[in-house]
């Protein structure tokens, strides 16, 4: 299958799972189903997973496409350092979060989707991937070169026009090379 970065698919799957988990939880709580406490947990876990998975990681190879407005989430997720960087931690976290969902029908689908996301993250971790924040590149201001401190104020000194004009019969001694062709009569 080539050099796929599993984490990208795991991220999509986990985000979808978080949404499904939360939706199932909302239905369970709003409908006042039996064991609604599991549904309430489902809402909390689903929302947490969505927040964690919303910022995409920077790709190892190729251009990374950000999700809209993900910068603030990137900063929050980055703040947790190795906990969020490492995909083994994420795989384990998702596996743990999904278990209570299995106890109630409304959250079962979220539970299974999150479990699958956890497995894909495990695969990503085994392949050595890790999460990298996508940070905006601060463009260094265009430098004109170390030796140029200021652009010159005056034009360079030049000989008067009569001497500047290239003599057709004396091209070798001309003052400088002109990219535009000069006509013989001017």
């Amino acid at each position: 299958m080539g050099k796929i970065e599993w984490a990208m698919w795991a991220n999509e799957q986990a985000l979808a799972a978080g949404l499904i988990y939360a939706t199932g939880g909302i239905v369970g709580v709003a409908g006042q189903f039996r064991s609604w406490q599991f549904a309430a947990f489902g809402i909390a876990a689903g929302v947490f997973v969505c927040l964690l998975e919303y910022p995409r990681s920077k790709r190892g190879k190729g251009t990374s496409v950000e999700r809209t407005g993900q910068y603030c989430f990137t900063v929050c997720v980055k703040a947790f350092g190795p906990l969020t960087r490492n995909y083994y931690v994420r795989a384990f976290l998702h596996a743990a979060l999904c278990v209570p969902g299995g106890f109630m029908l409304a959250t079962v689908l979220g539970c299974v989707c999150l479990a699958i996301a956890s497995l894909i993250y495990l695969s990503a971790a085994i392949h050595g991937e890790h999460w990298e924040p996508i940070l905006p590149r601060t463009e260094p201001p265009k430098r004109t070169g170390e030796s140029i401190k200021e652009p010159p104020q005056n034009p360079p000194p030049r000989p008067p026009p009569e001497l500047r004009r290239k003599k057709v019969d004396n091209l070798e001694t001309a003052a400088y090379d002109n990219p535009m062709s000069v006509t013989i009569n001017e």
Partner: protein
Amino acid sequence: MGNFAANEGLSIFVILVWLGINVFLFVHFYMAFLVDRYYYTRVILGQALSWARAPAACLNFNCMLILLPVCRNLLSFLRGSIQCCSRTAARQLDRNLTFHKLVAYMIALHTAIHIIAHLFNFERFMDSQLMINSSYLPYVLSQIGNNDNRSYLNPIRSNETNPTIVMFTTIAGLTGVVITLALILIITSSMEVIRRSYFEVFWFTHHLFIVFFIGLVLHGVGRIVRGQTVESVNVHNPNECHSHFETWGQNNSCPVPVFAGNPPMTWKWVVGPMFLYVCERLVRFYRSQQKVVITKVVMHPSKTLELQMKKKGFKMEVGQYVFIQCPSISQLEWHPFTLTSAPEEDHLSVHIRIVGDWTQALYTACGGDKTVVLDAWTLPKMAIDGPFGTASEDVFRYEVVMLVGAGIGVTPFASVLKSVWYKHVQENNVFTKKIYFYWLCPETQAFEWFADLLQSLERQMTEKNMSDFLSYNIYLTRWKDAEAAHLRVQYEAEDDPITGLKQKTRYGKPNWDNEFSAIATQHPGSKIGVFLCGPTALATALGKQCISHKESGTEFIFNKENF
């Protein structure tokens, strides 16, 4: 606005009809479960019954539709048949993938509604088994059929279970979970990010649709949706008898009601398209078994590989594409490439950019990294499926044509230009009178193979005194300062220093507004076809230009092709 109607009218009509059918089915089946037969079912479930059945009907309809846009061979056949009648209708078939995605979103939406409604249904069925009180109608209803296990209403037959266990032990529940999981996996792996970067993951996961359809057909086999039988309604009218539930069967006016399940209906909707799709795959397989021989391999700079092949009985039109498989690289992967040869040539050729694993492996297999010439028998065996029609087929049906290609997107137009040339050589009155060709390219090296083609065309046209038939503009969209300085020095050279062509290469991006206005004033009152093979941003820009330029009564009709 007029151009908008010409460009988008049929698409909008098709979408509205499709939405209309969805709404109709939803409302119709919602109301169908509000009748007396389901009176007692509704006593337990309330409106959630209708909320579950209505999206189910829409799901049947959409699952029927979703297989059709991906039957490439069927669409090619339809396209060929309609083309003689209506260009617009034929163009509509180019948007098959967009339609496929729309139908997929609708399936996802209806699945969500269906599942949420069923969550309520399961909960209410469970409740009515647990509230053990013989003065409670739902409980009484749930006890019907305890003896013979056939005439029951409540699919949850005991109170010592819970909805989750019931779900995993009924056919409907189990297949429901499986197909929903398949659907979710298909959707997450079809996200644009995954699809563009790791096509194989997308393609292989998408084959879970087989699991989806099998589960879908089996979903209703358990007959879990139950209502009163017709005979029972005749003798036991729910509207009158529901209040006397404590005395059912004890006097003659209200015998105990008998319930039965609805037979599965989904198979009737999907069996046709499933059959068509199976035929489609068989056609693809048959075509792929035909022998293909590589006759020439050319390596071009900027990592482009040209393969010239021969296949017996292969017929193509201008600008079509084929799917290529190389069994020695991968048995399962088929990749699409535009044909760069003209129909009048005796071989077929493709130009492949080396960008991913498969193309890299193909490059190695064809001896790209060896300097010695390979014998023909050492070249890998190939399989080809196609050709499939795209927008470029329509080029010759317009009198004036604008062709815009960005980077590697210029490949279908290679085929067009070659074919134009052959047509002029072979017959003298060709309907197309003028071609404006725009090629946007980020780097100079990519010019090489295409520039050769343009040079030879330029030469041949001058010989035939037709130099104003084709007007081409090449735009270099990215350049370094050093190059620009060199080019400025070569300003007055007769041939362009990069391409060697008579028309100069320009820098930056074209000003489309000016180009469209100029062309419109040059050809008043005609229909001008605009063909693009390139990125979406360019497509949006050109689409807008087509819609807004109507001076002198010209109409620009926009055709986009992409994979």
